[in-house]
């Protein structure tokens, strides 16, 4: 139970960090981390990011967390679907 709670706290703080990274890197105006739903779509609907943002965000994640975005486009679409998916990917693959 305790371990699970700690795990949840880590996931939450990682989600928070990724929200801040998105706002920071993409210079989103008038958007606070609280405005971004962890499960909402990042692209098109939801936050409304576009293809240029996708490239920039991928680079920022690689730089910040040392993670490697893979070579499978379908997999990448899933990873970039939402903040929750991004956090799961970063949490699982960072060193």
């Amino acid at each position: 139970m305790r371990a699970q709670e700690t795990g949840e706290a880590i996931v939450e703080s990682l989600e928070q960090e990724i929200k801040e990274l998105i706002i920071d890197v993409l210079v989103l105006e008038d958007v606070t981390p609280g405005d971004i739903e962890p499960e909402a779509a990042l692209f098109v609907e939801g936050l409304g990011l576009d293809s240029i943002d996708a490239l920039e965000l991928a680079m920022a994640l690689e730089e910040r967390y040392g993670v490697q975005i893979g070579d499978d486009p379908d997999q990448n679409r899933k990873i970039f679907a939402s903040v929750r998916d991004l956090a799961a990917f970063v949490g699982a693959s960072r060193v």
Partner: protein
Amino acid sequence: MDPNSGNLISFLQLQSVSAASDAPLAFGSRGDRCRADFARDVARMAAAVASVGRGRWLVDTADRYLAAVGLFALAESGSVAVLPSAGPADPQAAWGADAVGLLAESESSETPLVATALAGSAGAPIESGDRRGRPWVEFRTSGTSGAGQPVVKAVRHLEDEVRILEARLGRGLPATTRIFATAAHRHIYGLLFGVLWPLASGRAFQRDILLHARELLPRLEECAASVLVTTPVHLKRMAESANLEALRGRCLRVFSSGGPLDEAVAHEVADRLGCAPFEIFGSTETGGVAIRCRREGGGANASGEATQEEWEPMPEVLVRVVAPDGRAEVTSPFVSTGERQSDGRTCTVMGDRIEMRPGGRFVLLGRADRVVKIAEKRLSLPEMERTLCGHPFVAEASLLVREIARESRVHAVVALSGAGREEFVREGSRCCRGALVAHLAKRYDRVFLPRAWRFVAALPRDGQDKIPQAALRALFDAPSASDRSSSPRTLGEKRSEEMFERRLDVPADLVHGAGHFPGNPLVPGVVQLDWALRAAGDWLATPLVLIGLKGLKYPEPLVPGGRVTLRLERGVASTAIRFRLFDGERVHLDGRAEFAVDRDLRSGE
């Protein structure tokens, strides 16, 4: 087929000539295909198309191989392949109004492309009996707005361009070269370079559209001879993140089109990859116009070679500069929109201004018509401004382009209407912005939507009633209006009929200073101006609309952390207010403002 023979087989005979061939034609995650596969798939698809009818057909697939199958099957029946533009919410409604059918991907591996009948009228007449003269592919000009303008290419336009591409840019590429592209085939550049040229020259092309360097790199590394067809946005990211050295001697040629390639990126790619990228300049209407290839140390020299910034017209393309605004006039066999000449070539005037150089070369001077490029797609700013003004919240709008996260992005300055101001006061700027973004998203690609918004009482205008770009830009140097923690503290006020004076304490950590010259914060001029204009409203106790500014000067920079005096004066018979912001002898802001009383707001009170 020997690509060096200079005898390219024409498109429509392609499948019959090479039907027996097992040479690779396309490769990718959905499987490799050879020429025999292609001939079989085209024949099968052509039968399905014939059963529905001839006319305009929508081709909607992200798979380059399937797109090629669709295009050739449609050519068999004399139909026109309509390629979608990027973006609008309901593409089919936008581009398919009178289409007879749709070719779209399916889950089935047996029939990966499916022909569906649509409501349009079948059997549209073919304009010309001559095979080369038949209309074949309909593009949409890249995204200016909504559905975009259709541009129809006849078989001969694309055939001729492919022939010239091979002659000018295909030299020395082995037949085993594989063509990788990040450019989508719904644009003419992506279709020509990523599909049609490879098909006609016997080189295999990649089916998938891969955008991330991480997806593309391993596939390029596996390949002994490759060509990369890309755009400035992608090439810049690749130069930053990819191990280009690993591709030395393997990636034999790099093409970039859609917008100007950053010179530093061009040099870096040339240096690390061992081959300098070829940039292609052109448009949907003109096809390819000119090329250039910049490498470090290149420059003007006595032998008349091209300098770094000069473009060299492609073979058979004539470029001239025309009065009155110095735009490029292009005549070539593959210009499809414009005046047909007696020699069969077509002549058209582009939106780009140029300056001619020796040897028929030229340099680009920029657009003549406030058309900008965002992520390699064209956007007409005046048109988007008109769209914005169609929303009930907007009285006036002016758009500009600034960089955010190293890419050009649209920024909007909006003067709100009466209804807009009511909404702004009641719900705030985010709500106004949300409504306007949703309004634009109905017609525009997402990459065009303004990323930063400023709402003002009136657009800034100079004495000639022009909107000064510098004043618009300055609005974005300050944080957005929703930030209320940025006002100076009022220490005291004096007022009379003719004069108003306000003593201000400017906090050292004023938010406006953040990011405005790191380590050396200054209060932006537009913020000082905002203080003055607000004070005018407070003094006269009535809603004011700024009509004009005159004699605006910022003699001394204002550093946050200190006290200043703001003084307003007005003449008895004048509607103008003189304003000055000063600290003893040091004057930070000086100018005159013309106001009108805002009747809308007054009546709303």
